[in-house]
Protein backbone atom coordinates (compact mmCIF):
# COMPACT_ATOMS: atom_id res chain seq x y z
CA UNK A 1 0.00 0.00 0.00
CA UNK A 2 2.63 2.49 -1.02
CA UNK A 3 0.00 5.06 -2.00
CA UNK A 4 -1.44 5.47 1.47
CA UNK A 5 1.91 5.97 3.23
CA UNK A 6 2.23 9.64 2.36
CA UNK A 7 -1.27 10.53 3.52
CA UNK A 8 -2.05 12.15 6.84
CA UNK A 9 -4.57 10.28 9.04
CA UNK A 10 -7.17 12.92 8.17
CA UNK A 11 -6.63 12.48 4.46
CA UNK A 12 -6.73 8.74 4.84
CA UNK A 13 -10.12 8.99 6.47
CA UNK A 14 -11.34 11.31 3.72
CA UNK A 15 -10.12 8.98 0.99
CA UNK A 16 -11.76 5.99 2.65
CA UNK A 17 -15.06 7.84 2.62
CA UNK A 18 -14.57 8.78 -1.06
CA UNK A 19 -13.74 5.15 -1.82
CA UNK A 20 -17.01 3.80 -0.39
CA UNK A 21 -19.12 6.60 -1.85
CA UNK A 22 -17.60 6.09 -5.30
CA UNK A 23 -19.32 2.70 -5.68
CA UNK A 24 -22.66 4.48 -6.03
CA UNK A 25 -21.36 7.11 -8.45
CA UNK A 26 -23.55 5.92 -11.34
CA UNK A 27 -26.64 5.27 -9.21
CA UNK A 28 -28.45 8.59 -9.45
CA UNK A 29 -29.98 10.08 -12.57
CA UNK A 30 -30.62 13.72 -13.31
CA UNK A 31 -31.03 13.53 -17.07
CA UNK A 32 -28.88 13.74 -20.16
CA UNK A 33 -27.40 17.18 -19.45
CA UNK A 34 -25.69 16.16 -16.22
CA UNK A 35 -25.53 12.39 -16.41
CA UNK A 36 -23.57 11.25 -13.36
CA UNK A 37 -22.66 14.73 -12.10
CA UNK A 38 -24.74 14.17 -8.96
CA UNK A 39 -22.84 10.97 -8.23
CA UNK A 40 -19.56 12.81 -8.67
CA UNK A 41 -20.61 15.51 -6.20
CA UNK A 42 -21.76 12.88 -3.72
CA UNK A 43 -18.44 11.07 -4.08
CA UNK A 44 -16.38 14.25 -3.68
CA UNK A 45 -18.32 15.74 -0.74
CA UNK A 46 -15.75 14.54 1.84
CA UNK A 47 -12.97 16.18 -0.22
CA UNK A 48 -14.86 19.45 -0.56
CA UNK A 49 -15.71 19.51 3.15
CA UNK A 50 -12.15 18.82 4.19
CA UNK A 51 -10.35 21.36 2.03
CA UNK A 52 -12.82 24.24 1.93
CA UNK A 53 -13.80 25.93 5.15
CA UNK A 54 -16.39 28.54 4.19
CA UNK A 55 -19.89 27.82 2.94
CA UNK A 56 -19.28 29.93 -0.20
CA UNK A 57 -16.14 28.02 -1.17
CA UNK A 58 -17.93 24.73 -0.69
CA UNK A 59 -20.92 25.81 -2.79
CA UNK A 60 -18.55 27.01 -5.50
CA UNK A 61 -16.80 23.64 -5.58
CA UNK A 62 -20.11 21.79 -5.73
CA UNK A 63 -21.37 23.95 -8.59
CA UNK A 64 -18.09 23.27 -10.44
CA UNK A 65 -18.94 19.58 -10.53
CA UNK A 66 -22.51 19.88 -11.83
CA UNK A 67 -21.10 19.55 -15.36
CA UNK A 68 -21.77 16.46 -17.50
CA UNK A 69 -19.77 13.47 -16.37
CA UNK A 70 -19.79 9.89 -17.59
CA UNK A 71 -16.86 7.47 -17.53
CA UNK A 72 -16.45 3.73 -17.16
CA UNK A 73 -16.98 2.55 -13.60
CA UNK A 74 -13.77 1.77 -11.65
CA UNK A 75 -11.51 3.61 -14.09
CA UNK A 76 -13.51 6.79 -13.36
CA UNK A 77 -12.03 6.60 -9.86
CA UNK A 78 -8.69 7.60 -11.33
CA UNK A 79 -10.30 10.89 -12.36
CA UNK A 80 -11.84 11.22 -8.89
CA UNK A 81 -8.43 10.78 -7.28
CA UNK A 82 -6.92 13.31 -9.64
CA UNK A 83 -9.72 15.82 -9.03
CA UNK A 84 -9.38 15.34 -5.27
CA UNK A 85 -5.68 16.21 -5.46
CA UNK A 86 -6.47 19.26 -7.61
CA UNK A 87 -9.14 20.46 -5.19
CA UNK A 88 -6.56 20.18 -2.45
CA UNK A 89 -4.09 22.27 -4.46
CA UNK A 90 -6.82 24.80 -5.21
CA UNK A 91 -7.60 25.24 -1.53
CA UNK A 92 -3.91 25.87 -0.74
CA UNK A 93 -2.93 28.00 -3.72
CA UNK A 94 -5.06 31.12 -4.37
CA UNK A 95 -3.63 31.45 -7.92
CA UNK A 96 -4.84 28.01 -8.94
CA UNK A 97 -6.93 28.03 -12.10
CA UNK A 98 -10.14 26.17 -11.22
CA UNK A 99 -11.07 25.69 -14.88
CA UNK A 100 -8.21 23.18 -15.09
CA UNK A 101 -10.19 20.85 -12.81
CA UNK A 102 -13.10 20.80 -15.23
CA UNK A 103 -10.66 20.50 -18.14
CA UNK A 104 -8.95 17.45 -16.63
CA UNK A 105 -12.31 15.79 -16.07
CA UNK A 106 -13.51 16.55 -19.59
CA UNK A 107 -10.29 15.53 -21.32
CA UNK A 108 -9.70 12.28 -19.43
CA UNK A 109 -13.28 10.98 -19.57
CA UNK A 110 -13.06 9.93 -23.23
CA UNK A 111 -9.68 8.20 -23.45
CA UNK A 112 -10.02 6.52 -20.05
CA UNK A 113 -13.49 5.24 -20.92
CA UNK A 114 -12.12 3.93 -24.18
CA UNK A 115 -9.64 1.78 -22.30
CA UNK A 116 -12.09 1.01 -19.51
CA UNK A 117 -14.97 -0.04 -21.77
CA UNK A 118 -12.89 -2.46 -23.77
CA UNK A 119 -11.18 -3.86 -20.69
CA UNK A 120 -14.19 -4.19 -18.35
CA UNK A 121 -16.96 -4.84 -20.88
CA UNK A 122 -15.00 -6.45 -23.68
CA UNK A 123 -12.53 -8.63 -21.81
CA UNK A 124 -13.04 -9.07 -18.08
CA UNK A 125 -16.81 -9.50 -18.36
CA UNK A 126 -16.52 -11.77 -21.39
CA UNK A 127 -13.99 -14.09 -19.77
CA UNK A 128 -16.07 -14.19 -16.58
CA UNK A 129 -19.30 -14.75 -18.53
CA UNK A 130 -17.72 -17.49 -20.63
CA UNK A 131 -16.84 -19.47 -17.55
CA UNK A 132 -20.13 -18.52 -15.85
CA UNK A 133 -22.26 -19.63 -18.80
CA UNK A 134 -20.52 -22.99 -19.06
CA UNK A 135 -21.21 -23.64 -15.34
CA UNK A 136 -24.78 -22.31 -15.50
CA UNK A 137 -25.60 -24.43 -18.57
CA UNK A 138 -25.52 -27.45 -16.27
CA UNK A 139 -28.16 -25.80 -14.09
CA UNK A 140 -25.74 -24.92 -11.31
CA UNK A 141 -26.17 -21.67 -9.34
CA UNK A 142 -22.36 -21.56 -9.20
CA UNK A 143 -22.42 -20.06 -12.70
CA UNK A 144 -23.75 -16.71 -11.53
CA UNK A 145 -21.63 -16.70 -8.37
CA UNK A 146 -18.36 -17.54 -10.16
CA UNK A 147 -19.22 -14.92 -12.79
CA UNK A 148 -19.70 -12.22 -10.14
CA UNK A 149 -16.50 -13.18 -8.30
CA UNK A 150 -14.35 -13.36 -11.44
CA UNK A 151 -15.55 -9.93 -12.50
CA UNK A 152 -15.64 -8.14 -9.17
CA UNK A 153 -12.38 -9.21 -7.54
CA UNK A 154 -10.19 -7.62 -10.25
CA UNK A 155 -12.67 -4.73 -10.48
CA UNK A 156 -12.38 -4.06 -6.73
CA UNK A 157 -8.58 -4.00 -6.90
CA UNK A 158 -8.61 -1.62 -9.87
CA UNK A 159 -11.28 0.53 -8.20
CA UNK A 160 -9.02 0.92 -5.17
CA UNK A 161 -5.73 1.56 -6.94
CA UNK A 162 -7.32 3.87 -9.52
CA UNK A 163 -8.53 6.19 -6.75
CA UNK A 164 -5.35 6.25 -4.68
CA UNK A 165 -3.19 6.20 -7.80
CA UNK A 166 -5.01 9.20 -9.23
CA UNK A 167 -4.66 11.06 -5.93
CA UNK A 168 -0.90 10.54 -5.63
CA UNK A 169 0.49 10.04 -9.13
CA UNK A 170 -1.18 12.78 -11.12
CA UNK A 171 -1.99 13.43 -14.74
CA UNK A 172 1.33 12.61 -16.39
CA UNK A 173 1.00 8.92 -15.52
CA UNK A 174 -1.23 8.12 -18.50
CA UNK A 175 1.09 10.04 -20.81
CA UNK A 176 4.09 8.02 -19.65
CA UNK A 177 2.18 4.78 -20.17
CA UNK A 178 1.42 5.78 -23.77
CA UNK A 179 4.99 6.91 -24.49
CA UNK A 180 6.61 3.71 -23.25
CA UNK A 181 4.42 1.64 -25.58
CA UNK A 182 3.02 -0.27 -22.62
CA UNK A 183 -0.51 0.75 -23.56
CA UNK A 184 -0.16 -0.74 -27.04
CA UNK A 185 1.00 -4.09 -25.70
CA UNK A 186 -1.78 -4.13 -23.12
CA UNK A 187 -4.38 -3.41 -25.81
CA UNK A 188 -2.99 -6.12 -28.07
CA UNK A 189 -2.82 -8.96 -25.55
CA UNK A 190 -6.23 -8.12 -24.15
CA UNK A 191 -7.67 -8.26 -27.66
CA UNK A 192 -6.06 -11.68 -28.16
CA UNK A 193 -7.64 -13.03 -24.98
CA UNK A 194 -10.97 -11.43 -25.81
CA UNK A 195 -11.04 -12.84 -29.33
CA UNK A 196 -10.10 -16.34 -28.15
CA UNK A 197 -12.97 -16.29 -25.68
CA UNK A 198 -15.27 -14.99 -28.40
CA UNK A 199 -14.31 -17.90 -30.64
CA UNK A 200 -14.77 -20.39 -27.85
CA UNK A 201 -18.17 -18.97 -26.95
CA UNK A 202 -19.32 -18.88 -30.57
CA UNK A 203 -18.59 -22.61 -30.71
CA UNK A 204 -20.43 -23.43 -27.49
CA UNK A 205 -23.34 -20.97 -27.55
CA UNK A 206 -24.45 -20.42 -31.13
CA UNK A 207 -26.43 -23.51 -32.03
CA UNK A 208 -27.77 -24.88 -35.27
CA UNK A 209 -29.13 -28.32 -36.09
CA UNK A 210 -30.91 -29.21 -39.31
CA UNK A 211 -33.42 -32.06 -39.45
CA UNK A 212 -33.22 -32.13 -43.22
CA UNK A 213 -32.76 -35.62 -44.67
CA UNK A 214 -32.21 -36.74 -48.21
CA UNK A 215 -33.27 -40.21 -49.26
CA UNK A 216 -30.85 -41.83 -51.63
CA UNK A 217 -31.73 -44.55 -54.10
CA UNK A 218 -30.33 -47.95 -53.14
CA UNK A 219 -29.71 -46.94 -49.55
CA UNK A 220 -32.20 -47.88 -46.84
CA UNK A 221 -31.33 -45.09 -44.47
CA UNK A 222 -31.96 -41.47 -45.32
CA UNK A 223 -28.86 -39.32 -45.28
CA UNK A 224 -28.83 -36.72 -42.56
CA UNK A 225 -27.55 -33.41 -43.89
CA UNK A 226 -26.29 -32.46 -40.42
CA UNK A 227 -23.76 -35.33 -40.52
CA UNK A 228 -22.31 -33.94 -43.73
CA UNK A 229 -22.17 -30.42 -42.35
CA UNK A 230 -20.29 -31.74 -39.32
CA UNK A 231 -17.84 -33.63 -41.53
CA UNK A 232 -17.18 -30.47 -43.49
CA UNK A 233 -16.45 -28.40 -40.38
CA UNK A 234 -18.07 -28.71 -36.97
CA UNK A 235 -20.18 -25.68 -36.30
CA UNK A 236 -19.85 -24.27 -39.81
CA UNK A 237 -23.33 -22.73 -39.76
CA UNK A 238 -22.98 -20.95 -36.38
CA UNK A 239 -19.53 -19.70 -37.40
CA UNK A 240 -20.85 -18.42 -40.74
CA UNK A 241 -23.88 -16.73 -39.13
CA UNK A 242 -21.64 -15.04 -36.55
CA UNK A 243 -19.14 -13.81 -39.12
CA UNK A 244 -21.88 -12.55 -41.46
CA UNK A 245 -23.54 -10.69 -38.55
CA UNK A 246 -20.16 -9.25 -37.64
CA UNK A 247 -19.53 -8.16 -41.22
CA UNK A 248 -22.97 -6.54 -41.45
CA UNK A 249 -22.53 -4.65 -38.18
CA UNK A 250 -18.92 -3.60 -38.63
CA UNK A 251 -18.46 -3.09 -42.37
CA UNK A 252 -21.99 -2.38 -43.52
CA UNK A 253 -22.97 -0.40 -40.39
CA UNK A 254 -26.31 -2.22 -40.20
CA UNK A 255 -28.28 -1.52 -37.01
CA UNK A 256 -28.00 -4.40 -34.54
CA UNK A 257 -31.75 -4.65 -34.15
CA UNK A 258 -32.13 -5.29 -37.88
CA UNK A 259 -29.57 -8.08 -37.70
CA UNK A 260 -31.44 -9.65 -34.76
CA UNK A 261 -34.73 -9.32 -36.60
CA UNK A 262 -33.12 -10.82 -39.71
CA UNK A 263 -31.99 -13.88 -37.77
CA UNK A 264 -35.46 -14.33 -36.28
CA UNK A 265 -37.05 -14.14 -39.74
CA UNK A 266 -34.39 -16.53 -41.09
CA UNK A 267 -35.20 -18.97 -38.28
CA UNK A 268 -38.94 -18.85 -38.96
CA UNK A 269 -38.39 -19.34 -42.70
CA UNK A 270 -36.10 -22.31 -42.02
CA UNK A 271 -38.74 -23.77 -39.71
CA UNK A 272 -41.59 -23.32 -42.20
CA UNK A 273 -39.52 -24.97 -44.93
CA UNK A 274 -38.93 -27.93 -42.64
CA UNK A 275 -35.19 -27.42 -42.49
CA UNK A 276 -35.05 -27.01 -38.73
Amino acid at each position, binding site marked *: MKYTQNLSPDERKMMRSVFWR*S*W*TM*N*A*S*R*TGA*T*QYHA*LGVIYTL*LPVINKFYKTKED*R*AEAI*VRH*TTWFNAT*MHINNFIMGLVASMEKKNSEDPDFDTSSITAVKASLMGPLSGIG*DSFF*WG*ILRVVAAG*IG*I*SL*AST*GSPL*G*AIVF*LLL*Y*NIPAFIIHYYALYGGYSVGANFIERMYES*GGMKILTK*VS*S*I*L*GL*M*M*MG*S*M*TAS*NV*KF*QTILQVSVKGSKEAMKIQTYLDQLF*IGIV*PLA*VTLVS*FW*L*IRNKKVN*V*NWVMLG*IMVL*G*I*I*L*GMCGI*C
Partner: protein
Amino acid sequence: MLTNALLAALAVFICFAGNYLTGQSMMERPLVVGLVTGLLMGDMRTGILMGASLEAIFLGNVNIGGVIAAEPVTASVISTTFAITSGVSTSAALTLAIPVGMLAAFVVMFLKNVFMNIFAPVLDKIAREGKEKQIVALHYGTWIIYYVIISSISFIGIYAGSGPVNEFVKTIPQNVMNGLNAAGGLLPAVGFAMLMKLLWDNKLAVYYLLGFILTAYVKLPAVAVAALGIVICVAVAQSEIRFNKMASEGVAGSANKTAMTAEEEEEDFFS
Protein backbone atom coordinates in the same frame (compact mmCIF):
# COMPACT_ATOMS: atom_id res chain seq x y z
CA MET B 1 -50.69 -13.47 -11.42
CA LEU B 2 -50.45 -10.44 -9.14
CA THR B 3 -47.84 -12.21 -6.99
CA ASN B 4 -45.80 -13.18 -10.05
CA ALA B 5 -45.97 -9.63 -11.37
CA LEU B 6 -44.83 -8.25 -8.00
CA LEU B 7 -42.01 -10.80 -7.77
CA ALA B 8 -40.90 -9.93 -11.31
CA ALA B 9 -40.77 -6.24 -10.43
CA LEU B 10 -38.83 -7.12 -7.28
CA ALA B 11 -36.33 -9.16 -9.32
CA VAL B 12 -35.76 -6.19 -11.66
CA PHE B 13 -35.27 -3.83 -8.72
CA ILE B 14 -32.83 -6.12 -6.89
CA CYS B 15 -30.70 -6.74 -9.97
CA PHE B 16 -30.88 -3.41 -11.76
CA ALA B 17 -30.88 -0.97 -8.84
CA GLY B 18 -28.50 -3.19 -6.88
CA ASN B 19 -26.10 -3.23 -9.79
CA TYR B 20 -25.70 0.53 -9.73
CA LEU B 21 -25.42 0.75 -5.98
CA THR B 22 -22.52 -1.71 -6.00
CA GLY B 23 -20.44 -0.05 -8.68
CA GLN B 24 -21.95 -1.84 -11.68
CA SER B 25 -21.04 -5.19 -10.23
CA MET B 26 -22.73 -7.00 -13.17
CA MET B 27 -25.73 -8.02 -11.10
CA GLU B 28 -27.72 -6.70 -14.06
CA ARG B 29 -26.41 -9.43 -16.36
CA PRO B 30 -28.85 -12.18 -17.39
CA LEU B 31 -26.66 -14.84 -15.73
CA VAL B 32 -27.43 -13.28 -12.32
CA VAL B 33 -30.92 -12.02 -13.22
CA GLY B 34 -31.93 -15.54 -14.27
CA LEU B 35 -30.80 -17.00 -10.97
CA VAL B 36 -32.55 -14.29 -8.92
CA THR B 37 -35.80 -14.58 -10.91
CA GLY B 38 -35.67 -18.37 -10.67
CA LEU B 39 -35.21 -18.21 -6.90
CA LEU B 40 -38.12 -15.77 -6.48
CA MET B 41 -40.43 -17.76 -8.77
CA GLY B 42 -39.53 -21.07 -7.13
CA ASP B 43 -37.85 -22.75 -10.10
CA MET B 44 -34.16 -22.06 -9.73
CA ARG B 45 -33.02 -24.53 -12.41
CA THR B 46 -35.10 -23.02 -15.22
CA GLY B 47 -34.00 -19.57 -14.10
CA ILE B 48 -30.33 -20.51 -14.28
CA LEU B 49 -30.68 -22.19 -17.68
CA MET B 50 -32.59 -19.19 -19.06
CA GLY B 51 -29.93 -16.91 -17.60
CA ALA B 52 -27.13 -18.84 -19.31
CA SER B 53 -28.85 -18.69 -22.72
CA LEU B 54 -29.85 -15.04 -22.33
CA GLU B 55 -26.33 -14.08 -21.24
CA ALA B 56 -25.02 -15.40 -24.54
CA ILE B 57 -27.67 -13.48 -26.50
CA PHE B 58 -27.11 -10.24 -24.63
CA LEU B 59 -23.35 -10.64 -24.26
CA GLY B 60 -22.66 -8.01 -26.88
CA ASN B 61 -25.32 -5.74 -25.56
CA VAL B 62 -22.94 -3.51 -23.74
CA ASN B 63 -24.02 -0.33 -22.14
CA ILE B 64 -21.28 1.86 -23.61
CA GLY B 65 -21.65 5.60 -23.54
CA GLY B 66 -25.18 5.20 -22.28
CA VAL B 67 -26.54 3.84 -25.58
CA ILE B 68 -28.19 0.44 -25.44
CA ALA B 69 -29.86 -1.59 -28.16
CA ALA B 70 -31.83 -3.79 -25.80
CA GLU B 71 -32.34 -3.71 -22.06
CA PRO B 72 -31.30 -7.11 -20.72
CA VAL B 73 -32.74 -6.96 -17.17
CA THR B 74 -36.41 -6.46 -18.09
CA ALA B 75 -35.99 -8.85 -21.02
CA SER B 76 -34.47 -11.56 -18.80
CA VAL B 77 -37.01 -11.20 -15.99
CA ILE B 78 -40.07 -11.20 -18.27
CA SER B 79 -38.92 -14.09 -20.46
CA THR B 80 -37.76 -16.16 -17.46
CA THR B 81 -41.06 -15.52 -15.68
CA PHE B 82 -43.00 -16.70 -18.73
CA ALA B 83 -40.80 -19.78 -19.04
CA ILE B 84 -41.44 -20.69 -15.41
CA THR B 85 -45.06 -19.69 -14.85
CA SER B 86 -46.83 -20.32 -18.15
CA GLY B 87 -45.13 -23.40 -19.52
CA VAL B 88 -43.78 -21.69 -22.62
CA SER B 89 -40.74 -23.66 -23.87
CA THR B 90 -37.42 -22.05 -22.95
CA SER B 91 -36.43 -21.51 -26.59
CA ALA B 92 -39.69 -19.73 -27.37
CA ALA B 93 -39.26 -17.63 -24.21
CA LEU B 94 -35.77 -16.72 -25.43
CA THR B 95 -37.08 -15.25 -28.68
CA LEU B 96 -39.66 -13.35 -26.66
CA ALA B 97 -36.78 -11.67 -24.82
CA ILE B 98 -35.60 -9.78 -27.90
CA PRO B 99 -38.69 -7.62 -28.62
CA VAL B 100 -39.25 -7.12 -24.87
CA GLY B 101 -35.65 -5.98 -24.50
CA MET B 102 -35.94 -3.51 -27.38
CA LEU B 103 -39.17 -2.06 -26.04
CA ALA B 104 -37.71 -1.74 -22.54
CA ALA B 105 -34.57 -0.11 -23.97
CA PHE B 106 -36.75 2.53 -25.58
CA VAL B 107 -38.51 3.27 -22.29
CA VAL B 108 -35.20 3.34 -20.39
CA MET B 109 -33.59 5.74 -22.87
CA PHE B 110 -36.57 8.06 -22.62
CA LEU B 111 -36.50 7.88 -18.82
CA LYS B 112 -32.84 8.57 -18.32
CA ASN B 113 -32.33 11.16 -21.04
CA VAL B 114 -35.64 13.02 -21.00
CA PHE B 115 -37.78 12.31 -17.96
CA MET B 116 -35.02 12.46 -15.34
CA ASN B 117 -34.13 15.92 -16.63
CA ILE B 118 -36.80 17.31 -14.30
CA PHE B 119 -34.28 16.79 -11.48
CA ALA B 120 -31.49 18.73 -13.20
CA PRO B 121 -32.73 22.20 -12.08
CA VAL B 122 -33.15 20.82 -8.56
CA LEU B 123 -29.48 19.82 -8.48
CA ASP B 124 -28.42 23.19 -9.88
CA LYS B 125 -30.39 24.97 -7.18
CA ILE B 126 -29.18 22.97 -4.19
CA ALA B 127 -25.61 23.05 -5.55
CA ARG B 128 -25.66 26.86 -5.63
CA GLU B 129 -26.93 26.92 -2.09
CA GLY B 130 -24.46 24.24 -1.01
CA LYS B 131 -27.11 22.14 0.71
CA GLU B 132 -25.27 18.88 1.29
CA LYS B 133 -28.06 16.93 2.96
CA GLN B 134 -30.35 17.61 0.00
CA ILE B 135 -27.61 16.49 -2.38
CA VAL B 136 -27.33 13.16 -0.58
CA ALA B 137 -31.12 12.83 -0.55
CA LEU B 138 -31.35 13.63 -4.26
CA HIS B 139 -28.59 11.13 -5.04
CA TYR B 140 -30.46 8.24 -3.43
CA GLY B 141 -33.92 9.64 -4.20
CA THR B 142 -33.44 9.70 -7.98
CA TRP B 143 -31.91 6.24 -7.71
CA ILE B 144 -35.10 4.88 -6.12
CA ILE B 145 -37.49 6.77 -8.42
CA TYR B 146 -35.66 5.71 -11.58
CA TYR B 147 -35.52 2.01 -10.78
CA VAL B 148 -39.03 1.82 -9.35
CA ILE B 149 -40.32 3.11 -12.70
CA ILE B 150 -38.21 0.57 -14.59
CA SER B 151 -39.41 -2.24 -12.31
CA SER B 152 -43.01 -1.27 -13.01
CA ILE B 153 -42.50 -2.11 -16.71
CA SER B 154 -42.05 -5.75 -15.72
CA PHE B 155 -44.99 -5.59 -13.32
CA ILE B 156 -47.29 -4.36 -16.10
CA GLY B 157 -45.77 -6.74 -18.63
CA ILE B 158 -46.42 -9.83 -16.48
CA TYR B 159 -49.76 -8.66 -15.05
CA ALA B 160 -51.31 -7.69 -18.38
CA GLY B 161 -49.26 -9.81 -20.76
CA SER B 162 -49.47 -13.34 -19.39
CA GLY B 163 -52.97 -14.14 -20.66
CA PRO B 164 -52.51 -12.86 -24.23
CA VAL B 165 -49.02 -14.38 -24.48
CA ASN B 166 -50.33 -17.80 -23.41
CA GLU B 167 -53.19 -17.63 -25.91
CA PHE B 168 -50.84 -16.49 -28.65
CA VAL B 169 -48.25 -19.20 -28.00
CA LYS B 170 -50.98 -21.90 -28.22
CA THR B 171 -51.99 -20.78 -31.70
CA ILE B 172 -48.46 -20.84 -33.17
CA PRO B 173 -48.08 -23.81 -35.56
CA GLN B 174 -45.39 -26.41 -34.85
CA ASN B 175 -43.06 -25.59 -37.74
CA VAL B 176 -43.03 -21.89 -36.84
CA MET B 177 -42.24 -22.95 -33.28
CA ASN B 178 -39.33 -25.02 -34.63
CA GLY B 179 -38.19 -21.98 -36.55
CA LEU B 180 -38.35 -19.83 -33.41
CA ASN B 181 -36.27 -22.44 -31.61
CA ALA B 182 -33.71 -22.32 -34.43
CA ALA B 183 -33.66 -18.52 -34.25
CA GLY B 184 -33.12 -18.75 -30.48
CA GLY B 185 -30.10 -20.95 -31.13
CA LEU B 186 -28.60 -18.56 -33.66
CA LEU B 187 -29.33 -15.25 -31.89
CA PRO B 188 -26.21 -15.28 -29.66
CA ALA B 189 -24.25 -14.78 -32.91
CA VAL B 190 -25.32 -11.13 -32.87
CA GLY B 191 -24.04 -10.68 -29.34
CA PHE B 192 -20.63 -12.05 -30.25
CA ALA B 193 -20.57 -10.01 -33.46
CA MET B 194 -21.10 -6.80 -31.48
CA LEU B 195 -18.33 -7.63 -29.03
CA MET B 196 -15.96 -8.64 -31.79
CA LYS B 197 -16.42 -5.17 -33.24
CA LEU B 198 -14.86 -3.89 -30.04
CA LEU B 199 -11.87 -6.24 -30.14
CA TRP B 200 -11.32 -7.07 -33.80
CA ASP B 201 -7.98 -6.57 -35.50
CA ASN B 202 -7.36 -8.34 -38.80
CA LYS B 203 -3.92 -9.45 -37.61
CA LEU B 204 -5.40 -11.02 -34.49
CA ALA B 205 -8.35 -12.72 -36.21
CA VAL B 206 -6.61 -16.13 -36.10
CA TYR B 207 -7.01 -16.14 -32.32
CA TYR B 208 -10.78 -16.06 -32.79
CA LEU B 209 -10.49 -19.17 -34.96
CA LEU B 210 -8.17 -20.77 -32.40
CA GLY B 211 -10.75 -20.28 -29.67
CA PHE B 212 -13.46 -21.71 -31.90
CA ILE B 213 -11.46 -24.83 -32.81
CA LEU B 214 -10.34 -25.45 -29.22
CA THR B 215 -14.00 -25.59 -28.19
CA ALA B 216 -15.67 -27.16 -31.26
CA TYR B 217 -13.05 -29.86 -31.95
CA VAL B 218 -10.83 -30.23 -28.89
CA LYS B 219 -13.90 -29.75 -26.64
CA LEU B 220 -11.94 -27.84 -24.01
CA PRO B 221 -14.03 -26.24 -21.25
CA ALA B 222 -14.17 -22.43 -21.09
CA VAL B 223 -11.76 -22.29 -18.13
CA ALA B 224 -9.09 -24.16 -20.09
CA VAL B 225 -9.50 -21.86 -23.10
CA ALA B 226 -9.18 -18.80 -20.84
CA ALA B 227 -6.07 -20.23 -19.14
CA LEU B 228 -4.50 -21.09 -22.49
CA GLY B 229 -5.36 -17.57 -23.67
CA ILE B 230 -3.52 -16.07 -20.70
CA VAL B 231 -0.44 -18.19 -21.50
CA ILE B 232 -0.49 -16.90 -25.08
CA CYS B 233 -0.96 -13.31 -23.84
CA VAL B 234 2.07 -13.52 -21.54
CA ALA B 235 4.20 -15.03 -24.32
CA VAL B 236 3.12 -12.33 -26.80
CA ALA B 237 3.67 -9.55 -24.27
CA GLN B 238 7.17 -10.82 -23.51
CA SER B 239 8.18 -10.93 -27.16
CA GLU B 240 6.61 -7.50 -27.77
CA ILE B 241 8.58 -6.01 -24.89
CA ARG B 242 11.79 -7.55 -26.27
CA PHE B 243 10.91 -6.23 -29.72
CA ASN B 244 10.27 -2.75 -28.32
CA LYS B 245 13.65 -2.80 -26.62
CA MET B 246 15.40 -3.93 -29.80
CA ALA B 247 13.57 -1.29 -31.79
CA SER B 248 14.62 1.50 -29.44
CA GLU B 249 18.22 0.23 -29.47
CA GLY B 250 18.02 0.00 -33.24
CA VAL B 251 16.89 3.61 -33.46
CA ALA B 252 19.79 4.65 -31.26
CA GLY B 253 22.19 2.59 -33.38
CA SER B 254 21.06 4.00 -36.70
CA ALA B 255 21.29 7.51 -35.33
CA ASN B 256 25.09 7.09 -35.27
CA LYS B 257 25.10 6.23 -38.94
CA THR B 258 23.21 9.25 -40.21
CA ALA B 259 26.03 9.91 -42.68
CA MET B 260 25.10 6.75 -44.58
CA THR B 261 24.21 7.44 -48.20
CA ALA B 262 21.04 6.25 -49.84
CA GLU B 263 22.95 3.58 -51.79
CA GLU B 264 24.54 2.18 -48.70
CA GLU B 265 21.17 2.08 -47.04
CA GLU B 266 19.77 0.13 -49.93
CA GLU B 267 22.62 -2.35 -49.71
CA ASP B 268 22.00 -2.64 -46.02
CA PHE B 269 18.37 -3.36 -46.71
CA PHE B 270 19.02 -6.17 -49.16
CA SER B 271 21.83 -7.86 -47.28
